[in-house]
């Protein structure tokens, strides 16, 4: 029986998801032996005609990581969708837009203005990158930079999601084994457990049954006791609203969870749920005092939407007219 054909592709990505595959170490060889890799991310020329030449649905699984930032990435995603039976959004950027999604609070013009004119080290001469440029020898092209970052399922139909920034080797391996073993949940599922991080956190026992905080602290204001629930110490930890499966690595690093495994199933909007959660645990009923405490959430949007801004209900900051 022929081995299943597998493809990898990356969009606006840091490469961490690729590294996560390499970190499977000796286990990756078992995976490699079981499949026929027909398209390696980044490593192969992603000239469209080569992939177009493949029969539709001839690729068993395509793993796509990274957010969609350029038109070319969307085109490739659509092409791989046609050629693949299953498409997996792999990592927080593909699933939710990821950290590059924070650029959705800005737009192309503001980003370019900083990079090519305003940054303190720039020796500005009025020029900035353009999609078509005349040079003495001819004309050069650059792809256009969009205003808005998108998650993969905002541009194509996605079958499954593997969460994490990046997915841990354990989660990755489990997902691959489920695929190869044909034991897949219904389409649209996230290939990881559906319990919040607290369930696998070593400090869960020290978490009070009702978390009631009178004051919030930023991590710069205290040294955490690594043996006690960080929320109970007044620091924002998004564990209660975040999908587990990561073995609570950040907590083991003595830092709180920032939400990289994304929402649990049935969460309509990660940031909205995080807002609700923070509002619930701050046990202050006097409005003025509540405001003082909640203002300690110094960057609410960056905190609740760090990985999921692009995939949030609103998706991006309102664009200025004519931007």
């Amino acid at each position: 029986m022929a081995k299943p054909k597998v493809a990898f592709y990356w969009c606006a990505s840091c490469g961490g998801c690729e590294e996560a595959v390499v970190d499977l170490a000796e286990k990756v060889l078992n995976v490699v032996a079981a499949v026929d890799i027909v398209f390696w991310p980044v490593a192969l020329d992603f000239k469209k005609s080569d992939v177009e030449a493949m029969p539709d649905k001839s690729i068993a699984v395509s793993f796509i990581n990274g957010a969609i930032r350029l038109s070319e990435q969307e085109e490739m995603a659509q092409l791989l969708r046609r050629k693949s039976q299953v498409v997996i959004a792999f990592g927080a950027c593909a699933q939710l837009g990821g950290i590059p999604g924070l650029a959705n609070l800005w737009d192309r013009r503001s980003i370019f203005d900083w990079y090519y004119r305003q940054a303190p080290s720039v020796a500005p001469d009025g020029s900035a990158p353009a999609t078509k440029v005349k040079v003495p020898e001819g004309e050069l092209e650059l792809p256009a930079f969009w205003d808005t970052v998108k998650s993969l399922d905002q541009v194509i139909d996605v079958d499954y999601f593997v969460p994490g920034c990046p997915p841990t080797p354990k989660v990755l391996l489990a997902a691959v084994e489920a695929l190869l073993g044909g034991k897949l949940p219904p389409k649209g599922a996230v290939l990881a457990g559906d319990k919040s991080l607290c369930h696998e956190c070593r400090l869960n026992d020290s978490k009070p049954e009702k978390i009631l905080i009178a004051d919030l602290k930023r991590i710069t204001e205290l040294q955490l006791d690594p043996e006690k629930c960080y929320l109970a110490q007044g620091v924002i930890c998004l564990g209660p609203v975040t999908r587990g499966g990561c073995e609570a690595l950040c907590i083991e690093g003595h830092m709180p969870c920032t939400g990289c495994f994304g929402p649990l199933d049935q969460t309509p909007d990660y940031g909205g749920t995080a807002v609700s959660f923070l509002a619930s645990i701050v046990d202050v009923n006097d409005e003025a005092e509540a405001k003082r405490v909640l203002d300690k959430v110094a960057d609410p949007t960056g905190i609740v939407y760090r990985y999921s801004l692009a995939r949030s209900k609103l998706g991006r900051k309102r664009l200025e007219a004519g931007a």
Partner: protein
Amino acid sequence: MSRQVVIDPVTRLEGHGRIHIFLDEKGEVRRAYFQIPELRGFEKFLVGRCAEDAPQITSRICGVCPTAHHMAATKALDDLYKAEPTDTARKLREMLYSIFMLEDHALHLFFLGGPDFVVGPTAPKAERNILGVIQKVGLEVGKKVIAARKELRGLIQELGGRVIHPVFGLPGGVAKGLTEEARVRFEEAARRGLEFALFCETVFEDVVLKNKAYVDLITSDAYTHRTHYAGLVDSNGRSNFYDGTIRVVDPSGNEVVRFAARDYLKHIAEHVEPWTYVKFPFLKARGWKGFVDGPESGVYSVAPLARLNASTGMATPRAQALYETFFKTLGGKPVHFTLANHWARVVEIVYAAERFLELASDPSIAGTDIRRLPTETPREGIGVVEAPRGLLIHHYTSDERGILTGANLLVATQHNAARIAMSVDKAAKASIHGGVIDDGILNKVEMAFRAYDPCHACATHSMPGSMPLKLQVFAADGSLVREIVRGVEACPS
């Protein structure tokens, strides 16, 4: 049309690069342009974020060297809050950083640039990768490398929380320390790390340095550029990855300037070209003279070769011996051979391992005072480290609450961007004549920029053994003469 050269300088870029070569009527190269077609906007979207989130946000610039950004950001936070890290924290940071440099450099040596030499630049493409290395030097080597990498990365995860995107750095300290029990384990691992580093040295000597053909290749003119060099040095002028002052030498090796990261704006500016998204840092003292070599040009280089050129020596004994051999063999300081970066990297592998062992053997690194809480009002901070690929500077401004109001990042491969563009141009001009282009020139161009270990090289070195490359060649009248696409073979499995 998509662009295919997958070079990723560690900037706010990911992925893709493109080379356009323009020919004249005789089929000679007029100019080869190396373009970076992407940008993500980190500097802009850092604005509005809490300063203490910068180390974890900026590490997402690159998943191969997240620790470099994490550390530069952490040091910038020290400066922002004027919170000096405790001695213990400083040692822990430098130790973690040494482990990271060791494993990252070793990855490049065996998986990325090294195969060109271990297997040979004229070997069939399909063999120019880790599998070919294993074939050539034995399966045991392969297993050793994979195991060493796994162990080193496990240590980073233990101390830093995560290996890909650590959570370790805080202004004035670190989040986690070592117990004495853990320190002993780290020390034992450091001994194995040093053995592994010396093993890397042996492999490189046996396979590369003893082979005259390779040495000739390294010293050939096609891969030579005479530029300035910059690197971080300690108070004795010796190379240090974690901290120091920036020392710049000219193409003759004379010191031009030595400055603290805080003063970088006085010495470095960035040039903009409209045909690429990357900006080109240059020395203000010389000014931007274009993509040219020489003492009058503002172009400078960073990363292993530059660091060795810019320093007066290595701070650990075995690395120092290798440093001396390096310069003696290649004809004195400074060395201008781009391909010598691979060898310089080996010297640094040994230094990183020795430094790791030094720090892990110091019992005081298991101290409990790992944090100094900030007390000052934050305002502005600049931090510098040496990333595997070169100098990395993070510069932040904030309001009084510690919310970032500005971010300026000068990222490793950026400092090399001009020299890389020049290397590509030179290699193309040396190799293409009479309009004839074949696989050989693709190879030569590839070798020119792979030596810089541009980030995402991990992904550029595909299993088939070649970097995916697309060259478009345009005649004098602008028509497309030839398009060569390479790297489309399926993975042999």
